């Protein structure tokens, strides 16, 4: 079965539906599926819910889908870098569900691993715990969090082979593996597609079983906070 597609638009063809839940990889602007996000904007799909740690900035990342009002709801841990997000949220045009960062990652991992819910100490005694089942284990209180199964996962990797085995680079790995795992369909965009066998089976970060479609393309890879020291 052929997994490699010619473009982001081709890979998304027949997959996008209004109102769907999309899990997206990336942390800040690092390791985000920028080509697929642009193609979703061009496709005009509406009422989307995104499970994504952040919401990009005004003109990059998920921010470009906020500009076109294609996003109905965000499930995120931190959205502080996006003015358009705040404008829509305060104006009641956008729903927001805050998840602690580790809870969001584990919800994706669990959803992909067939685990519908898990108990965690994170958020006990805070607004995050309100309305959630509490349970004591060994004298400590935990809350129930649900696994996420997304209609579509979009992720960014460094290299892929044609079977969908993925290798990420440095901290651009972040949410990409758990996001990929929780998608009913996962599309990966990569910088390079390499010959089968050249990645080395021991060095694969995410096995191709989780990846259904692959595209290769040029990435801008924008830096959010350029910080340097004087030599």
């Amino acid at each position, binding site marked *: 079965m052929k997994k490699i597609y010619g473009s982001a638009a081709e890979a998304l063809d027949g997959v996008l539906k209004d109102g769907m839940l999309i899990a997206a990889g990336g*942390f*800040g*602007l*690092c*390791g985000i599926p920028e080509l697929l996000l642009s193609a979703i904007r061009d496709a005009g799909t509406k009422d989307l819910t995104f499970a994504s*740690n952040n919401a990009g900035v005004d003109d990059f990342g998920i921010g470009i889908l906020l500009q076109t009002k294609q996003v109905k709801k965000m499930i*995120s*841990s*931190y*959205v*502080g*870098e996006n003015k358009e997000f*705040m404008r829509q949220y305060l104006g009641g045009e956008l729903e927001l569900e*805050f998840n*602690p*960062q*580790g*809870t*969001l*990652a*584990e919800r*994706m*991992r669990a959803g992909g691993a067939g685990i519908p819910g898990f108990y*965690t*100490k*994170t*958020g*006990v*005694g*805070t*607004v*995050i715990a309100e309305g959630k089942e509490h349970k004591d284990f060994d004298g400590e209180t935990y809350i129930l969090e649900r696994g996420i199964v997304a209609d579509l996962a979009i992720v960014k990797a*460094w290299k892929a082979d044609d079977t969908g085995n993925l290798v*990420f*680079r*440095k*901290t*651009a*790995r*972040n*949410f*990409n*593996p*758990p996001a990929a795992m929780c998608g009913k369909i996962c599309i990966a965009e990569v910088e390079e597609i390499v010959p089968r066998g050249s990645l080395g089976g021991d060095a694969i*970060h995410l096995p191709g079983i989780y990846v259904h479609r692959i595209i290769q393309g040029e990435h801008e*890879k*924008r*830096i*959010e*906070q*350029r*910080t*340097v*020291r*004087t*030599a």
Partner: protein
Amino acid sequence: MAWDRNQMAARAAQELQDGWYVNLGIGIPTLVSNYIPDGMDVTLQSENGMLGMGAFPIDGEEDADLINAGKQTITELERTSYFDSAMSFGMIRGGKIAMAILGAMEVAENGDLANWMIPGKLVKGMGGAMDLVAGVGRVVVVMDHTSKHGDSKVLKECTLPLTGKAVVDRIITNLGVMDVVEGGLKIVECAEGVTEEELRAATEATLI
């Protein structure tokens, strides 16, 4: 006289122990990395998926794929390892990180911590703070003792929405060091040039 930001960071660095894996928050806690004692083996975690965080890069060597949890460009070390967010928070939640040094807006005498939201102001999100305070072995807070208006930030009860309940072990402020113990806060030491009377006068929490 009281400690400045760098002196607070230097004092917080005395909390480190050889062999520890540690997470440093944004702001003054980040400065702690400048004061790790020579010869002490401390590995810094960045919760976006890295152990063994290095310094900021020199100009021209920034890498878009290599950032810290504050989204700043950083560098790697020989010991560095990378992993995904689920594993990163697995090691946080699983108690593998010995200590987190974090900033705060308010701390209460029972160890309650508020550092993620001010109602009525723009809400940015908790990021990984709730996971860190719930999971790591020891939570040390570094912050100014009072607000710009002179109000104590070391309180009987937090007024802001909590990041975690009864999670703080030690508080380091510009005025001194306090431990959260049964019945209130115990003064560990006063900052250089600060008297115990001055520390008490600036503190709303019960000091025992």
